[in-house]
Each structure stands twice: as structure tokens, then as C-alpha cells.
């Protein structure tokens, strides 16, 4: 208790210094007054008594000082004193302080923005209760080269029933599908996904209104099925908070009402809490899968793979234990269903890890890049402070000579750095906050799963940390400088305030070298990505994207027969052809670059058993598809309107398939089926033509074997209309909209986008990363050039006298300039060498992101080195010019 009250007194004294002084004054007055009265009582005159009392008391000022000394917490006072002193000295050099703070704000701001992204994506836990118990289960199939694949519903159900460690396993369709909301004014596009009834319960989400799905709702009622009656329960839908607000005006009585989605009526059962959107941002509606219990044992339930599976572990269960149980089930399924599951494995990983996925590497690279940027900024500021320290040499030497402790000088230097870094940190936080906003806007959809990230406690803590750290980093040089100063030496030469000491110069050189090395590293990283981006952009996609508008259309359940669908599609084609300027019209189930519609096993007729293939891409297209996209026909023919539902089923294949599976044979006329082992029920297709390869999975992924089905022979209610024009594709948008509306007013267009845009969007991620990295590299480069300039300017200032003498003695200006430039070059080359070694060792980490560029690409390394060397010479030129203009008369007189 004594200690606490003592401490309290100290703290009170510290923070209320003036009031403590006042109290002491009052106490002394009181004392002297009593003493005076005593003296008066002893018979002295009032004046005499007072004089005596004061003299008896002794030096009032000394008492005050001693009093203060006792009460202050020495080090904090010193610290504050140092801080104040630092502020004052920074105010004396506003240009330097401003430059330092801006530099730091840049470095710290970039770090804040990138760290907020890392924080939101990687560090912050998923917003679900006990989210560490949530696992993602993926299908792994070595035969089909599947990794992290979606699951077949039957497999998911078997895992759910067979693994005791799982509290529950739920499924959902990955990503957002689109659906049309009708019956409420204009048709509206909504993002939706299908989930199993236990989806919300497994995640641990509770409704803000109504209820969420139950497991029963995944199934059409068994009871009524048995007696052959249809399930009379309504279809059900859950709305997101956002959809509820935007489309239904937050109607509190919405639960129980019905809406029409893509022509089917759904009853709204509940609203999810604000902010919940899974599996991706922007989901409006969740619908329950509706499985017929009869399908449970059917192969059609085990062959198509389309569900993401999330499991919740029971409390206290370890991941490895659950995984062992899962693998046991997987082995059993392999034995029981060899036709579908012979090679079908399953893997389990924490859901968070799965969602971070391939965002990790880009974020890591960005984080490294901004860390380098901050280091360069630190080196620059360190340099500035060194220059400043050199300018204050005399002041410091004098203080040393007068007995100031070296420790005190070091502390002073560090205090100055910390004040700077804190100011820089504050500005950096503001810049970073703005940067975060920009990042959210600029990021391509899906790169960062969380779009609402921002500045939170973790980010604040990070800012304080890196500000302190950078303060210490750039404070080291001036602090050492302060430590190693020899007052005698300094005062001797101090009259002229000339030459930097060896220590300071060495530090300055070291800073420049490391700056150049870091800038090289950053620029090489960015350069590699730029080169790679260039290569990808110039890949021939195999189709002509110019002048094509694409429109995604989904027909409602009213189109329940092939002839209805074909009727609509034919009308659509005819009307689109009538638009002025339109040259071709076609349809496909999946656009190139957007992945296959589906993949399958296959075999050609007459091949020995086992000579089958897997994972061929399937797309279904209208006859004019190839002409519309300018995909060249290599051999045979493409579909015509003669290929009808009642004629032989035909296929067009691409060259990749012809070369990989029909090596040395003519595929045309061969019969082809989508089975590993043909059965009497197998449908045989006849191959009629071979077309050129298109990039289906992305420009950076080699074209894969593909087969095309005829959209006339196999009608699909979901397809993409493609319209080619001689002019600007985007200008067709309104006419196409009008046509679709006139054909069926209840249809919303699920997506209108030019094919050029599709192509650009497929590069969005790599473009984003490249742009960011390039931006940081440019800033880093500029900072390092400024650093080189700063050091050389100092050098040339220090050597003004020498230069003056040289010129007086007849040295040509060019030679004097060369002296300065040479020094700049020497440092730059050392930096480049160091940076090159570092680059050779580290760029390997980027290999996965590079396309047709090796991480040690010599062209990039040499190009970047030359660029840096050139800019450094440029930076050296100004001080060199100044040096060569030294007027001997002036410099010698100033002595």
C-alpha cells in the first residue's frame, strides 16, 4: 500500500509538474510565515523576523531543485526532454523533416494497405463460431489429376454417415450462380447458390429473421414419394441481409411470402445476419438442394462432382483422427464402387486454409515488396539524418567537450529518429487507410475473399510496430555517428565544419548500397511479372475476341422440352442476325477461357480395354460457333442444321485431342464414347471434324483436349449467345436486350460482356499483382535514386574546397564532374552486385506466378541493372555539375 501511494505521488508529480511546484511553493511560504511569527514572538521586528526566517531557510531555489530531482521519474523526464529537443531541432530544419516524414509515410502507408489485406484474408479468423473446427473436404484423384476438387453428392453423404468424428458435413455449389427474380417490376439478377439443408447449422449461422434450412429440406419427402404423390412442400429460399434491404425494403413481414426465381416459386423462410455471405461475397439467395431419395444409390449421384463439402469436427477431436476415419470410408467406397471411385481419394484441410488458397503467394510477394520499400525509405531517412548530423558536428562536439555523456548524445539521436518515425507512422496510417480503400476498389473480384477489410486493432498495432522498428533502423546510423565522435578531432577541423568523419561516410555508403540493392530486388520482381504479363497477353488464344458481344441466358422451367428450347434459340438467332452490322450469331454452353462446361472419361470404338482417356473438356455449341469465333476448321466439317436430334450424334474435336489420343490415325469417322468401359447402353458419337485449339482454362494454361457437341442435338436451357459485328461489340448491348425482352419478358440477361472483356478479365489477377508490384518498385526506385543523389550532394558539398583547388590548378570541369559521378557509380555497382545475388537467390519464390519467364531471366536482370545504373548516373550528375562549377575564388576565401 505504501509502495502504491508512493508511486501515485511520483506519477502525480510527473504529470502535474507545475502543480507540484505550486504546492511546494505554498508549503515553503507557510513555513517561512510560521518561522517569521516565531521570530516576532521572540521580539524581533516584523521585517527583521522575516529576513531571518528566509535566510534560515536557505536557498529556496535549491530546495525546489532538490525537491524536483527527488520526485521526478528521471528517465521519463529525460525521454520527454529528448523528445521536445528532437521536435525543436526538427522544426529548425522543416525541409529535412518534411522530406523524411513524406518518405516514411509512403513506406509505412504501402505497408498498412497491404497488411490490412493480409490481416483480412489470412490473419483474422473466419467469422463463424469455433471456426477452427470447420474443415474443407476435397476429392483427390491421381488418375484424373484432380486436386482440391468438388465432390460427388453420394460421396459427401457417405462421409457424413461414415465418419463419427464429424459433427456434420454440408455441401454447397461453389461460387455464385445467377438467377432471375421476376414478378416485382423489371426482372432482377440475383446471385444465388444451392446448399444442403444442414449448411447453415454446420457453419453455425443463425437467422436474424425467420429460420434457416433443415436437413429434411435437402430431400423430397420420402413418404409421399412412396405412394407416388408429388412432394407438396413449397420450394424454400433464404435471403441475404443485403437482398432483403435492397430488393424488399427490409420488409419485417417477409418470412412466409413467396418470390419467383427463374420461373419457380419459392417461399422465403428466413434472412441471414448482416455481413454473412458464403461461399463468396455478394450472395443474395440460398436455395436448398432437392434430392429424390431414390437417387441415393444411383450412379448418377456418384459420377457428377459439383458440391463443395465442409465438415464440422466434434469438439475435442483432432484433425488427424478425423482424417483417419475419413480415409477408412474412402477406402471402403473404392471397393464398393470401383466404377466411379476406384481412384477417388479425399483430403481434409482447415476451411480457412482452403479459402486463403492461392491468395497466399501474391499477398506474400506484395508484403515482401512493401517491406523492401519501407527499408529503402528507412535508408533514405537515415541518410538525411546523417547529413544533418554532419552539419551539426560542431554543436555535438561542443556538447561532448563540455561534458555531455556520449550515451546522452546517442539517446538524443534515437529520440530524434523515433519522433520522426512516429510522425511518419501517423501520416503513413492516413495514407495507408486511403490505400486500403483503393485496394478494395482495384482488386479483381475473388482475389481477396473479404472485401470489407480495413484498419482494425491488428493493423494499428502493426503500424506502431513498423514505425518503431523503422525509427530504430534509420536511427542506428546517426546514433553510431554520435557515439564515435571524437570531440578533439571534430573541434580541430570544426572551424571549417568540413569533411565527414570516416564513420559517417561509411554509413552513408552502406545505406546507398543497400538501397540500390533493395531497389534492384523490387524492380527485378516487378520486371519479371511485367515480362510474364506481356507474354501472357500475347498468347494467341485460338479464337478472335474482337467485335464479339456475349450474353448469358438462362431459360426458366417453363422451357421443359428440347423443342421449346430449340424454338427459343432459333428465334433468338434469327432476330440477332437482323441487327444491323451483325455478321455472325452463335451459342455455346461455355465461353473459352471460362473453363469446360464439364469434363469426362472417353474411349474410341475398337480400342483395347484400358486405352481410355480422362478429363476431356466438353462444350456444346451451335453450328456457327466456329465461324463466329474464327476458330479454324482443320479437317472434315463442322455441325450443320442437318445434324438433328434424330440423326447420328456427331462430335467435333480439337487438334489437342486428335494429337494426344489419335496419334497416327485419322480421327474423322471414328466412333467415340464417354465411358471408360463401353456397355451395350453406351451412346456412340461419330467424329466429323477437327478444329484449332482454344485456350479454355486461361491464357497461361495450354489448350486441353476438347470435344464439341451440337447444341441442336443436345438442347440446354443455359447457354451463352455470341454476336459478332464489324463495329464496336458493346454498342450491340441495347439491341440484344430488346430482342431478348421481346421474346420473353420474364428473362433477365445473366451477364452481358464483350469477349475482349472476357479475355481481359481472365488476366485481372495477374494484372492487379503486376500493377501493384510495379507501382511499389517505381516508388522504391525513385527513393533509391533520391538516396544516391543525397549522398553525392553531401560529398560534393564537403569537397567543394578540394574541387575549388583542383579547378584553380587547372583541372578541366569534365574531370571534376567525373570524380563525383565515379563515386556514385562505385556505390551503385556495389549495390547492383549485392542486389543481383539476392535476386538470384530469392526470385525462385515467384516461379509459380511466372509464365514463360524463368525467375532468373537474364534479360530482366540486365535490363533492370542498366536502368538503375542509368538513373544513378543521372542522380549523380546534378551534384557533379555543382562541384564542377565551384568557384575557386569563393571556396578558398570562405576558409
Amino acid at each position, binding site marked *: 500500500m505504501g509502495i502504491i501511494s508512493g508511486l501515485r505521488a511520483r506519477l502525480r508529480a510527473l504529470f502535474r509538474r507545475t502543480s507540484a511546484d505550486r*504546492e511546494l511553493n505554498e508549503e*515553503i511560504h507557510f*513555513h517561512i510565515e510560521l518561522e517569521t511569527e516565531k521570530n516576532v514572538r521572540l521580539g524581533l521586528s516584523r521585517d527583521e523576523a522575516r529576513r531571518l526566517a528566509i535566510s*534560515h531557510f*536557505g536557498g529556496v531555489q535549491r530546495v525546489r531543485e*532538490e525537491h524536483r530531482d527527488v520526485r521526478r521519474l528521471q528517465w521519463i523526464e529525460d525521454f520527454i526532454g529528448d523528445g521536445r529537443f528532437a521536435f525543436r531541432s526538427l522544426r529548425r530544419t522543416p525541409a529535412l523533416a518534411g522530406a523524411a516524414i513524406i518518405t516514411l509515410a509512403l513506406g509505412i502507408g504501402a505497408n498498412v494497405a497491404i497488411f490490412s489485406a493480409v490481416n483480412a484474408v489470412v490473419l483474422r479468423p473466419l467469422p463463424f463460431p469455433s471456426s477452427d473446427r470447420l474443415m474443407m473436404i476435397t476429392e483427390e484423384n491421381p488418375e484424373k489429376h484432380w486436386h482440391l476438387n468438388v465432390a460427388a453428392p453420394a460421396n459427401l453423404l457417405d462421409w457424413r454417415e461414415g465418419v463419427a468424428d464429424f459433427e456434420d458435413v454440408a455441401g454447397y455449389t461453389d461460387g455464385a450462380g445467377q438467377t432471375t427474380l421476376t414478378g416485382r417490376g423489371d426482372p432482377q439478377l440475383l446471385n444465388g447458390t444451392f446448399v444442403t439443408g444442414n449448411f447453415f447449422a454446420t457453419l453455425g449461422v443463425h437467422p436474424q429473421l425467420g429460420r434457416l434450412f433443415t436437413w429434411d429440406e435437402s430431400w423430397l419427402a420420402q413418404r409421399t414419394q412412396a405412394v407416388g404423390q408429388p412432394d407438396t412442400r413449397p420450394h424454400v429460399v433464404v435471403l441475404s441481409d443485403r437482398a432483403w434491404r435492397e430488393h424488399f425494403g427490409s420488409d419485417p413481414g417477409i418470412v412466409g411470402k413467396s418470390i419467383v426465381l427463374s420461373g419457380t416459386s419459392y417461399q422465403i423462410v428466413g434472412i441471414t445476419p448482416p455481413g454473412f455471405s458464403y461461399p463468396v461475397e455478394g450472395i443474395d439467395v440460398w436455395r436448398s438442394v432437392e434430392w429424390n431419395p431414390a437417387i441415393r444409390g444411383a450412379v448418377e449421384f456418384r459420377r457428377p462432382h459439383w458440391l463443395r463439402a465442409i465438415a464440422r469436427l466434434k469438439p475435442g477431436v483432432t484433425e488427424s483422427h478425423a482424417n483417419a476415419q475419413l480415409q477408412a470410408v474412402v477406402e471402403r467406397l473404392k471397393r464398393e464402387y470401383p466404377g466411379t471411385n476406384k481412384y477417388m481419394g479425399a483430403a481434409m484441410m482447415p476451411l480457412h486454409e482452403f479459402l486463403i488458397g492461392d491468395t497466399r503467394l501474391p499477398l506474400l510477394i506484395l508484403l515482401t515488396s512493401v517491406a523492401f520499400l519501407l527499408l529503402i525509405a528507412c535508408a533514405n531517412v537515415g541518410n538525411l539524418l546523417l547529413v544533418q548530423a554532419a552539419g551539426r558536428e560542431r554543436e555535438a562536439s561542443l556538447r561532448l567537450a563540455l561534458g555531455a555523456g556520449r550515451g546522452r548524445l546517442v539517446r538524443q539521436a534515437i529520440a530524434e529518429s523515433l519522433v520522426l518515425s512516429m510522425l511518419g507512422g501517423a501520416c503513413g496510417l492516413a495514407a495507408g487507410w486511403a490505400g486500403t480503400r483503393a485496394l478494395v476498389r482495384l482488386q479483381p473480384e475473388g482475389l481477396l475473399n473479404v472485401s470489407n477489410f480495413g484498419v482494425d486493432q491488428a493493423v494499428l498495432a502493426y503500424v506502431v510496430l513498423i514505425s518503431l522498428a523503422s525509427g530504430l533502423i534509420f536511427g542506428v546510423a546517426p546514433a553510431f555517428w554520435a557515439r564515435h565522435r571524437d570531440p578533439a578531432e571534430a573541434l580541430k577541423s570544426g572551424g571549417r565544419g568540413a569533411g565527414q568523419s570516416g564513420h559517417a561516410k561509411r554509413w552513408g555508403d552502406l545505406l546507398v548500397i543497400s538501397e540500390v540493392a533493395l531497389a534492384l530486388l523490387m524492380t527485378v520482381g516487378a520486371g519479371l511479372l511485367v515480362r510474364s504479363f506481356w507474354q501472357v497477353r500475347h498468347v494467341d488464344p485460338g479464337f478472335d475476341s474482337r467485335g464479339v458481344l456475349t450474353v448469358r441466358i438462362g431459360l426458366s422451367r417453363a422451357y421443359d422440352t428440347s423443342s421449346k428450347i430449340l424454338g427459343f434459340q432459333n428465334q433468338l438467332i434469327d432476330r440477332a442476325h437482323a441487327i444491323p452490322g451483325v455478321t455472325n450469331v452463335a451459342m455455346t454452353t461455355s465461353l473459352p477461357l471460362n473453363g469446360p462446361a464439364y469434363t469426362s472419361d472417353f474411349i474410341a470404338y475398337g480400342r483395347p480395354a484400358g486405352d481410355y482417356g480422362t478429363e476431356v473438356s466438353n462444350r456444346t455449341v451451335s453450328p456457327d460457333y466456329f465461324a463466329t469465333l474464327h476458330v479454324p476448321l482443320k479437317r472434315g466439317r463442322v455441325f450443320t442444321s442437318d445434324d438433328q436430334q434424330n440423326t447420328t450424334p456427331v462430335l467435333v474435336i480439337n487438334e489437342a485431342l486428335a494429337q494426344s489420343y489419335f496419334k497416327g490415325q485419322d480421327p474423322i469417322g471414328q466412333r467415340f464414347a464417354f465411358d471408360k468401359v463401353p456397355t451395350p447402353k453406351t451412346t456412340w458419337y461419330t467424329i466429323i471434324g477437327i478444329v484449332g485449339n482454344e485456350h479454355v482454362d486461361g491464357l497461361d494454361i495450354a489448350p486441353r483436349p476438347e470435344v464439341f457437341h451440337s447444341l441442336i442435338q443436345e438442347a440446354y436451357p443455359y447457354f451463352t449467345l455470341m454476336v459478332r459485328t464489324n463495329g464496336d461489340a458493346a454498342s450491340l448491348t441495347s439491341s440484344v436486350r430488346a430482342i431478348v425482352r421481346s421474346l420473353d419478358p420474364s428473362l433477365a440477361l445473366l451477364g452481358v460482356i464483350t469477349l475482349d472483356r472476357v479475355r481481359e478479365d481472365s488476366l485481372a489477377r495477374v494484372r492487379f499483382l503486376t500493377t501493384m508490384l510495379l507501382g511499389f518498385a517505381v516508388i522504391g526506385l525513385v527513393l533509391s535514386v533520391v538516396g544516391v543523389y543525397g549522398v553525392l550532394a553531401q560529398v560534393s558539398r564537403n569537397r567543394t574546397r578540394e574541387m575549388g583547388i583542383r579547378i584553380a590548378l587547372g583541372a578541366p570541369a569534365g574531370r571534376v564532374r567525373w570524380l563525383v559521378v565515379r563515386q556514385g557509380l562505385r556505390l551503385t555497382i556495389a549495390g547492383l552486385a549485392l542486389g543481383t545475388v539476392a535476386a538470384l537467390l530469392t526470385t525462385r519464390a515467384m516461379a509459380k506466378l511466372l509464365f514463360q519467364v524463368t525467375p532468373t531471366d537474364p534479360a530482366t536482370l540486365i535490363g533492370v541493372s542498366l536502368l538503375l545504373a542509368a538513373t544513378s548516373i543521372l542522380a549523380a550528375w546534378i551534384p557533379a555539375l555543382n562541384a564542377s562549377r565551384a568557384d575557386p575564388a569563393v571556396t578558398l576565401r570562405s576558409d
Partner: protein
Amino acid sequence: MASANQPDVLRGTLDLLILKTLTLEPMHGWGISARIQQFSKGVLDVNQGSLYPALQRLEQRGCIESEWRTSDNNRRAKYYRLTASGRRAVGAETANWRRYVDAVELILGIA
């Protein structure tokens, strides 16, 4: 009242004298110095210059507490009061002092 032949209180003993004085009752600074003078029958004169820093020191060590009160003659004064740990310190310090004095006596007695 001070005069030349009055010894100042030895530096190390001032704390002990203050604490001992405060065992009687809470007092203000002048009161403490007056008491010490009075008890020592005028022999010891507290150096005022060291009294207030000493009080501050003792307060920080937690031996005494202070508060502003109205004095007998109706003026505001800062009163110091012994804390529990101060009370313990008096005991310990007194014992120390006795040992010290005995030791000095022994040495002086040799001659």
C-alpha cells in the same frame, strides 16, 4: 532560532528523526522542524533546505502520506502522516541507529 554552534542534523539521521516525530501525530513541515528542535532541547537544528526534499523522498518510499488541511491558525498547510510501512521503518531504523551509536561509543571508548 539558529546559531553557529548548533550542529545540523546528520544527513542519514534526518529521515529517522522525521519518522519518529510523526509517530506522535500528523504534522506539517514547520511543525516537524520545530518539534525536532524542541525535543533535542535546541541542540539539533533541521536544515530546512533538506527537510522538504526528505519529506518528498519519504513519501515516495511510501513511509508517509500527505494531505492539505487547515492548520490551527486557520491556514492551509500540508500535513504529513505516518503510514503502516513508515511505522515499521521507525522500528527498524531505530534499532539500526542504536547499533551504530553503540559501535561508535565502543570505538570512542578505546582511548
